[in-house]
């Protein structure tokens, strides 16, 4: 599903060049649930942003579903993001004046899905994350866990090929974290490819594969026996 070869990324900070990713090679198959680990500042988010076409690499190749991702202008990137990718952020990034339902329906609006169908589909995904009763609530009326579920429903609504989650449990307590991970596992069980950036070991253990980043390169990449989140709840 994802093929990355020799990916490099530097940031300019003043006159200095900060080399964040120094040659990343990785293949991810369809249906995988991959944890990307590493200490703070090791480049996890940078990698995920490049995969998510929110940022561009300086060097290297990137294939998504056998489709080369290169020469992206903003408009193309926006269309690919909408079509191929779903994002889950640590800080949820819901639109605060839109209800849960409207937030979930928004990617479909940009896919030019009609209003009635949008509402129906969004309702389905809300039900999937167990929040159909909260559809008319604003984000400010929801708990952290509920907000993240809404964000997951929104990411799913566009029916992307890959879900990218940057520290999805970073702002949640452990019980809530496990509930969110359970949801992610369920979605993965249905066959969706998911990448989860985390620096928490227990969250990583709930994935099927752990990739360890350090100083801009992958220093470890191993399959693990998935711990089911339901065992913790």
């Amino acid at each position, binding site marked *: 599903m994802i093929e990355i070869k020799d990916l490099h990324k530097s940031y300019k900070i003043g006159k200095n060049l900060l080399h964040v990713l120094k040659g990343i090679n990785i293949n991810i198959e369809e249906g995988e649930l991959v944890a990307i680990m590493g200490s703070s500042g090791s480049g996890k988010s940078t990698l995920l942003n490049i995969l998510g076409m929110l940022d561009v690499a300086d060097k290297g190749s990137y294939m998504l579903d056998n489709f080369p991702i290169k020469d992206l202008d*903003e408009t193309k990137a926006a269309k690919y993001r909408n079509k191929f990718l779903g994002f889950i952020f640590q800080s949820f*990034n819901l639109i605060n004046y839109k209800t849960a339902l409207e937030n979930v329906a928004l*990617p479909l609006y*940009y896919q030019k899905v009609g209003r009635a169908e949008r509402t129906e589909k969004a309702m389905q995904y809300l039900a999937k994350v167990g929040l159909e009763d909260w559809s008319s609530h604003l984000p400010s009326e929801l708990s952290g866990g509920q907000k993240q579920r809404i964000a997951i429903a929104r990411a799913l609504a566009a029916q992307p090929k890959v879900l990218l989650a940057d520290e999805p449990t970073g702002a949640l307590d452990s019980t809530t974290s496990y509930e969110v991970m359970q949801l992610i596992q369920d979605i993965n069980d249905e066959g969706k490819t998911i990448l989860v950036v985390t620096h928490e070991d227990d969250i990583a253990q709930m994935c099927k594969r752990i990739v360890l980043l350090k100083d801009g390169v992958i220093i470890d990449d191993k399959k693990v026996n998935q711990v089911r989140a339901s065992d913790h709840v």
Partner: protein
Amino acid sequence: MFNRDSWQEIFETISKNKLRTFLSGFTVALGIFIFVILFGFGNGLKNSFQEFFMDDATNIFRLFPGRTTIPHNGFKSGRDIEFDNADLVAIQKNFAFQLQYITPRIQRNYTIKYKNKSNNYGLRAVASGHQHAEKTIMMKGRFINNQDVLNKTKYAVIGRLVEIDLFKGEDALGQFIDIGKRSFKVVGVFQDDGGDNEERFVYIPYTTNQLIEKNTDKLGQLIVAFKPIIGYQGAMKFEAELMTFMKKRHDISTKDEGAIYLRNVAEDLEQNQQFGSLLQMVVTFVGIGTLIAGIIGISNIMVYVVKERTKELGIRKAIGATPRSVIAMILQESIFITTAAGYIGLFGGIFLLNSIEDSLDNYFIKNPYINMGTAIFATVLLIIFGGIAGYVPARRAARIKPIVALRDE
């Protein structure tokens, strides 16, 4: 881009961000409202100005007799000048080419009586030309004519309000009124645009008045009308010649400024027109100023709005909004708000102007109005600039990378 769905999205955004909508809408509405009111007031000021100064004929000089200030030809200074019938004839003879008509005006105050009603009124003893000089409009009957002057008839022409005061709804025409101790027949009733005071006068032939006053030949002031075809230059030349002519007749030094006063309405007119266009310029200036203030206001608000929405726009872009759709959304929203608010301000302003009408007459604002073309032009201008004001920050926002926007917390 302009389908029903995107409108729905915009209405949602507008209705859920009431403060923002109100702020930008209010600025525009207020801008247009003030523009309309100021412009209307400016026009009202022009109206009262015109009424004040344009009421009378504009092709006349007024000659007022004064008192000499310089000894001349053996006369001491301090001598009172009076015009008489001989002056009238001499002017008519000497300036036949320039002269349209000439009329004296002898002004007196009399108690005027009809049956048992009486009141004090101004009496003006004049010739027929006076009707043109004051633009007196006859409601019924006729004005003093040349026959009256020749025959020294005891005919009177009374103002509309004199008729109302004395006749109480009765028709004054053909009735007899007492002016002082003498009886005059009413041959006409007039109205005048110059206001209430102009309609409380009574006109009689000047010759009749001279007869009453012991058969004198004195005339009071002279109103001299020139033929309009001689033009402004011709009028100025006529004025100078007339002055010289009159000074010579009355043994007045050419340097004497006090013996005869001459008021040239043509000159006044020129000044008044200059003042009128100055007024127009001030009004236009104030209007443009208001519009610019409105445009600056809406620009600032758009910058603030887009800044406030940076994160939201980042989220929208992350989940698939193209830069184009971001710009379109912000533009559509700002144009919709400015249009709606602009028309609220426009019609609010026009409504207020219409309801003012004559109530500010005392402040020299008469019938304030703005013509629809100007008002709509101003509104459209504000909408266009509102759009441009929205476009610049919208384009900037659309260019911000989503990660940058999302980091902004």
